[in-house]
């Protein structure tokens, strides 16, 4: 026993410290590759421009890329309309998924016992939903939202399909967050005379906001990363959408088209991927900050 205690912890420690290395290594390699290949789209071509002027030129090019419409099948111009479409799809997705998701999570964790049969059934179907391949979602979304409900190729159809995909992640994360709130809080609330719903809204949700936010981040991540599901639902059009009923391609579809379908689209494909990664960072960081502020507001300690 003593011998095991001496070398085994060190071995395990080494494994733990080593584990992130290949992960970070490969991923940073990927990111670096993106920056090099995509950054070229923003680098000033005119070599006479140097110093502070080059920074201004790069900034201009970035802004142009983010706001202009695609030109020459996407090889020139920018990704403005596509960013708007993607944003709208995400908004529809969240507007639909958040209420349903939170509601279901509350139901599962607060109002149903853990062993409850109905709860188990819901949980199981959610897990299955989480595992459905994105392309099957795309086909389903196309048949149900686009044809059966008559939405046709539209941002609304895309957002609804994505909501179906994101729901299981959101619910599971939120539920874990709710469950992590100690029973003592609920008992204290009951002792103070809070109603069930008040308890939920004023005590539990704020305390579980971390779990909710993680679910949200994972969900947005999954939604933004989606390609196969959206090709069949929100479509291919790269025009600025005028309403939720318009078709509009998402950023990942644009990246796919430029890299796999349009000759010469590589540079802008990588540049778009870079924009996507940067926006993800922004979303993640701000989501965490928002949750942190809720936490500070509602809970005086912890």
């Amino acid at each position, binding site marked *: 026993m003593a011998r095991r205690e001496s070398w085994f912890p060190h071995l395990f420690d080494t494994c733990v410290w080593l*584990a992130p290395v290949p992960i970070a290594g*490969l991923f940073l390699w990927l990111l670096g590759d993106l920056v090099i290949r995509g950054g070229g789209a923003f680098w000033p071509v005119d070599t006479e421009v140097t110093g502070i002027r080059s920074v201004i030129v790069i900034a201009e090019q970035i802004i142009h890329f983010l706001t202009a419409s695609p030109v020459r099948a996407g090889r020139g111009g920018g990704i403005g309309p596509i960013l708007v479409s993607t944003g709208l799809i995400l908004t529809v997705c969240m507007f639909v998924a958040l209420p349903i998701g939170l509601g279901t999570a509350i139901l599962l964790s607060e109002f149903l016992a853990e062993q409850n049969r109905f709860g188990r059934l819901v949980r199981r179907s959610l897990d299955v939903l989480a595992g459905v391949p*994105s392309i099957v979602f795309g086909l389903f979304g196309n048949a149900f939202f686009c044809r059966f409900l008559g939405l046709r190729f539209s941002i609304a159809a895309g957002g609804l399909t994505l909501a179906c995909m994101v729901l299981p992640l959101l619910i599971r994360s939120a539920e874990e967050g709710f469950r992590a709130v100690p029973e003592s809080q609920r008992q204290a609330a009951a002792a103070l005379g809070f109603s069930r719903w008040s308890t939920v809204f004023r005590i539990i949700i704020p305390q579980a906001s971390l779990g909710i936010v993680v679910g949200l981040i994972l969900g947005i991540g999954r939604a933004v990363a989606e390609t196969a599901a959206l090709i069949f639902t929100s479509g291919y059009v790269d025009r600025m959408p005028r309403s939720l009923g318009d078709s509009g391609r998402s950023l990942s579809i644009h*990246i796919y088209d430029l890299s796999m379908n349009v000759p010469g689209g590589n540079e802008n494909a990588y540049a778009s991927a870079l924009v996507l990664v940067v926006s*993800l960072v922004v979303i993640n960081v701000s989501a965490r900050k928002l949750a942190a502020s809720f936490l500070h507001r509602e809970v005086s300690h912890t």
Partner: protein
Amino acid sequence: MIAGSVVVVIGAFVVGESIPALTHIGGSRFMTDESWHPAADASFGQFNLLPILIGTVLSSFAAISVAAPLGILSAAFCQFYAPLRVARWYRLMIELMAGVPSVVFGLWGLVVLVPIIARIHPPGQSLFTGIVILTLMILPTVALLSDAALASVPRSYLQGAAALGLSRATTTLSVVIPAARSGLVTAVLLGLVRAIGETMAVVMVCGNVVRVPSGPFDPIRTLTATIALEMGYARGDHRASLFFCGMILLFLVTLLVTTMEIVNRRLRHGTT
């Protein structure tokens, strides 16, 4: 409520669309036909799905066997070993990985990884490359869910272990991980399920050849890739057989999820 019904509707849809495949082609042909050369009319085509099914199973199971230990270890790293600042950056990076589209992973795999592997053993697009990319893609799912599971272990356990003078390694391995067992099992199984369902990246780096691989550097085709590649050009029985692929995928996922539930129930009763 709504969520449950969505699953049922999807299931019904997929099964409904697959029915022509089953009636015209018949279950056994999916395993005994010479190969996969589908046609709109069942009598003209060949519909052996076995190599494709094997491709899906091999790639996803291999990927999870790499991603599971890596993911759980890195979650332990984040929770117990790394200094706070490092842990925060690392977690941010993992969350970022979760949001990178499969197209980007696939593109990088095709343009960067495949040529390197092709030099070791052509063609480059292979089971091996698929496993690497899949591991990268499902790792965030495993890591983040494991992280949440490890974080939810009650403080008292950690304090107890510290009081007993246990090393960090022993605490993690013998106290925390067993306590978080059910959450970890969920994390791993959801990662596996995600690997099974991955489409775009697989299409770009696996080679898409319908053959049972004789080695890790041989190309493979998965069920999802088959649907993605052929759906736009398929009619009649071919289309139905693609929906049958979807049905198999749903069945696999349901099987795994049910297993996970049974395992978790056993584990929960064990610990109290």
